[in-house]
């Protein structure tokens, strides 16, 4: 049987080309993602950087640890706690102590004054340190001398030279001029500026986060253990010193992002490649009914026919999978490079030597190929011998009962998922996990049920063109509507791409629009002042509050942790503000209680919290890790979610004010107030926005990673659609020699035949696009209903441009792959008559 299969493969390679390419590409992508995931799971433990030359580092508490019945749960503290002053003094008695402070420094007029994102500011910004700690990172003077006076600095890198005056804003303060007195060679993990120890302490007065002690580690550990105020403080030596490196949290988050991104992309790749391989294989088997009939006439049993089909899949599957592994081997380092370049993965990220991704991908590829032909093989085995003698007719049974059953079950399933989510918890629908997974279920259901819709849709769409004088409209309509199998093979991949594009992009756009509408509704301010990276100093806040004719509310972002169900330590975003200001300046949607009741023992929560009844007590850990039990004084409407809790500034120690809402009093002049506000924040580099500007600036809230993820998913889906379309069209057209010759005999010119092929391709793609739009409509309707249930206003945003672009791409691919082989065929054959 294998020899028959091999010979078939040699002569009918076009039929297998699409399956081969789809499979090789899928296996390549899976290998690539596997390799990257393996590398992120075994990320190299990079060596200490900031304190690589320090003997012992005492690191302030930065992790909240909560003991629960099912083990210790941890969460990062925001902001991390400094090393207590008492401990620093105690350590000074056992060895020389050097305190290191890190604080944001920005070139004047630089990021903190512009509308750049915080992340961009972090990257271009400088980090200030006291000169005494420079040596621990390995900095050595390359020119000049250390800073000796408060106005002297040493900079890393070549952007300034000794003797130059530089204007800098340090730690959110005012802009000042410093004299560069020396330079050191730059190190990759930060852009450092060194001040004198006293100046650094003045600029960043909070106690130091890291203290280097020149003493035996055991003595330091004992000293820390003996200090009752030193809970959570860690003593780091050897490789552990990397835990005090600046971008540790960033690295961890970045890797989680990489994993999530590739996990989603890998899932979509598997989903789409299984689908495409199964459908192209099935189509090529269906196209060869006559051949199976001939084999059966020649005496082959159904089992033998099935074995031939499986053997073909085995040959195609294993060669394609092997090719895919090679592709993945070369692609993975490029993917890792791209992730690093786009700042998705940390700088040091690279591909390790894991081999399991190859085996996994190879096995997956083979499995996909065999699974893809399983149903097709059974169908081929059932072809009766008489089929060889019959003329090609209209497709009658494109809808196998198994397909109908699976499609129906999935449709019911996705309906159930949507309705139960809407009934139980509409907020669930707005979560990324939900709105990326649910469309896939519905898309699969629609793709399986597509044969049912293809005929009526094709007739409907072709009705108008068919009324025209020429034959093209009528012929295209009839051919598309009767060749259900062929049309489905083209329409279904288009449906998948269009529906994924529409649902993913449309859902995020709709949710973003709703969030913007919600934000607009909640903002009672006329102006919103935002700070750069370091926040506003109390002096700035006081200056703003003193502007006549205004009411202000200063907000400091913090985190409140709760223990849910005794197992999950969840951090909720929270804002610290004074109760009076909350009540006058904001328009928060209170459903119970009063904002004015907020005091240092109270908290305002929203309906997302497990406990949300006024008067109940809730146990929380504040941003700095302090455990508190707070009384719920007011409950806010859940809305689109993640809208945060409110506490008083006393419960957000260490959090700097980063936003000030300003409301005008009746009669106050807008222009004058704006000018006064600008004056008040000018020295500290804040940005005064009108309420509209602010809401607009918050609008593109979809994070960059989510967007990259979506484009990745869409790119993969579109690529596969293109492969499926190209394969199907080339196969279908080459099998239509007879049809086209008959048309030529009936008097059609070459141009007319080609126009017909193009029109049929466009019609089939349109059928798919309409079905995709229908799926998109259902998905967006579910989201809109969820928003309505949460009483959030806002329009349904349909990403027409993306839908059009996807459909257009599909149409171009389909038309090209129908017309080019058609033209070649017609040129080869001329209008000679055909015999059966």
């Amino acid at each position, binding site marked *: 049987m294998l020899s028959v299969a091999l010979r078939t493969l040699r002569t009918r390679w076009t039929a297998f080309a699409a399956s081969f390419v789809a499979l090789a590409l899928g296996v390549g992508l899976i290998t690539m993602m596997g390799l990257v995931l393996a590398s992120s799971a075994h990320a190299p433990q990079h060596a200490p950087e900031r304190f690589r030359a320090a003997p012992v580092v005492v690191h302030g508490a930065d992790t909240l640890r909560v003991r629960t019945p099912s083990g210790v749960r941890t969460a990062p503290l925001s902001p991390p706690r400094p090393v207590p002053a008492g401990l620093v003094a105690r350590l000074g008695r056992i060895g020389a102590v050097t305190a290191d402070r890190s604080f944001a420094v920005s070139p004047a007029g630089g990021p903190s004054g512009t509308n750049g994102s915080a992340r961009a500011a972090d990257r271009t910004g400088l980090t200030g340190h006291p000169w005494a700690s420079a040596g621990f990172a390995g900095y050595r003077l390359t020119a000049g001398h250390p800073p000796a006076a408060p106005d002297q600095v040493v900079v890393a890198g070549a952007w300034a030279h000794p003797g130059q005056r530089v204007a800098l804003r340090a730690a959110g303060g005012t802009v000042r001029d410093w004299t560069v007195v020396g330079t050191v060679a730059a190190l990759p993990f930060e852009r450092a500026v060194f001040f004198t120890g006293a100046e650094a302490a003045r600029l960043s007065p909070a106690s130091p986060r890291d203290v280097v002690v020149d003493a035996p580690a055991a003595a330091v550990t004992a000293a820390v253990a003996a200090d009752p105020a030193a809970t959570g403080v860690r003593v780091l030596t050897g490789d552990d010193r990397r835990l005090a490196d600046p971008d540790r949290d960033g690295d961890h988050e970045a890797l989680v992002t990489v994993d999530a991104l590739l996990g989603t992309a890998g899932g979509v790749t598997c989903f789409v490649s299984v689908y495409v391989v199964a459908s192209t294989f099935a189509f090529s088997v269906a196209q060869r009914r006559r051949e199976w009939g001939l084999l059966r006439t020649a005496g082959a049993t159904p089992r033998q026919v099935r074995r031939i089909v499986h053997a073909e899949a085995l040959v195609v599957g294993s060669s394609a999978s092997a090719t895919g592994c090679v592709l993945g081997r070369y692609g993975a380092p490029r993917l890792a490079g791209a992730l690093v370049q786009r700042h998705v993965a940390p700088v040091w990220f690279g591909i390790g030597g894991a081999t399991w991704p190859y085996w996994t991908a190879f096995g997956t590829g083979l499995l996909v190929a065999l699974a893809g032909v399983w149903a097709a093989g059974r169908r081929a085995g059932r072809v009766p011998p008489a089929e060889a003698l019959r003329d090609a007719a*209209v497709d009658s049974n494109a809808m196998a009962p198994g397909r109908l059953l699976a499609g129906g079950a999935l449709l019911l399933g996705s309906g159930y998922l949507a309705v139960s989510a809407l009934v139980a918890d509409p907020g669930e629908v707005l979560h990324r996990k939900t709105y990326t997974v649910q469309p896939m279920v519905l898309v699969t259901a629609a793709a399986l049920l597509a044969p049912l819709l293809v005929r009526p849709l094709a007739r409907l769409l072709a009705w108008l063109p068919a009324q025209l004088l020429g*034959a093209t409209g009528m012929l295209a309509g009839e051919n598309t*509507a009767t060749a259900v199998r062929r049309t489905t093979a083209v329409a279904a991949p288009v449906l998948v791409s269009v529906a994924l594009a529409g649902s993913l992009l449309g859902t995020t756009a709709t949710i973003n629009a709703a969030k913007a509408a919600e934000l607009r509704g909640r903002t009672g301010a006329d102006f919103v002042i935002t700070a750069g990276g370091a926040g506003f100093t109390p002096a700035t806040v006081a200056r703003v509050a003193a502007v006549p004719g205004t009411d202000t509310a200063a907000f400091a972002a913090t985190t409140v942790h709760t223990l849910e169900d005794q197992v999950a330590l969840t951090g909720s975003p929270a804002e610290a503000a004074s109760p009076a200001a909350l009540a006058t300046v904001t328009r928060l949607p209170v459903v119970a209680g009063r904002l004015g009741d907020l005091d240092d023992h109270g908290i305002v929560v929203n309906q997302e919290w497990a406990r949300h009844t006024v008067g109940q007590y809730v146990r929380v850990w504040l941003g700095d890790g302090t455990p508190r039990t707070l009384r719920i004084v007011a409950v806010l409407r859940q809305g689109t979610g993640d809208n945060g809790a409110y506490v008083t500034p006393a419960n957000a120690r260490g959090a700097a004010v980063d936003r000030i809402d300003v409301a005008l009093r009746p009669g106050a002049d807008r222009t004058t107030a704006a000018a006064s506000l600008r004056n008040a924040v000018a020295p500290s580099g804040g940005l005064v926005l009108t309420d509209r500007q602010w809401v607009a600036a918050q609008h593109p809230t979809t994070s960059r990673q989510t967007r990259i993820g979506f484009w990745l998913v869409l790119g993969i889906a579109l690529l596969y659609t293109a492969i499926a379309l190209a394969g199907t069209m080339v196969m279908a057209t080459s099998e239509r020699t007879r049809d086209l010759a008959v048309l030529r005999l*009936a*008097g059609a010119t070459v141009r007319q035949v080609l126009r017909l092929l193009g029109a049929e391709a466009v019609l089939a793609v349109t059928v798919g696009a309409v079905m995709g739009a229908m799926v998109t409509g259902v998905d967006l309707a579910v989201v809109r209903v969820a928003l309505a249930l949460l009483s959030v206003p806002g329009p349904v945003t349909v990403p027409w441009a993306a839908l059009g672009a996807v459909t257009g791409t599909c149409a171009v691919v389909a038309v090209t792959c129908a017309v080019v082989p058609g033209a070649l065929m017609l040129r080869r054959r*001329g*209008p000679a008559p055909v*015999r059966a």
Partner: protein
Amino acid sequence: MQLRSVSRTYGSGDTVVTALDGVTLGFPTGSFTAVMGPSGSGKSTLLQCAAGLDRPTSGSVLLGGTDLTGLSGTRLTLLRRQRIGFVFQSFNLLPSLTAEQNVALPLRLSGRRPAKGAVRDALARVGLADRARHRPSELSGGQQQRVALARALITEPEVLFGDEPTGALDSAAGRRVLSVLRGMADEDGRTVVMVTHDPVAASFADRVLFLADGRLSGELRAPTAESVAAGMARLEAVSC
């Protein structure tokens, strides 16, 4: 319709096969001619060259003063569409179209709307008025061939070519098709040229041309099934 010393060879160099070797003949308007000959005698090639489906290697094919051999591909297609009709052994209907749509196809391809009732009339003419909305797969072989005839009729061609039009049909269905062809010559004055193997089919024609090795080898006027069979037997005896 005139053919003047038409030759057609296939292949090149040592492997040249001569299918037609300088054939000159005419098909008078309104006549019904049957072309017969053993396999490989060139009768299908003759038909295809005469119908403009294939191009002769040398010689000319004249249809009412127009030389088909001098026309470009597209012009030839247009001329075929307007002035020539065909029927084949395999019926060559488009499986996705109904009988009615298949019949209307040549008109729609030339951008004309079928006149009211013209399609129905053509179908009625071949006795299939009640099958207009059936697809080919729902029709018998004889019915499909009659749909093909109706499709050939709809453009009112001057010449109708049939390549073994009854070859795939039983004798009763074949007779119905042949009487339609006969009627087209007698009542509409069209020229009908038919290639066949079947002496009975050939006996419906006004005359029978015998072809052997690419050359005309005989002619029989007012044929009967018996005389045609005798002529064929003679030819096959010579060629064997």
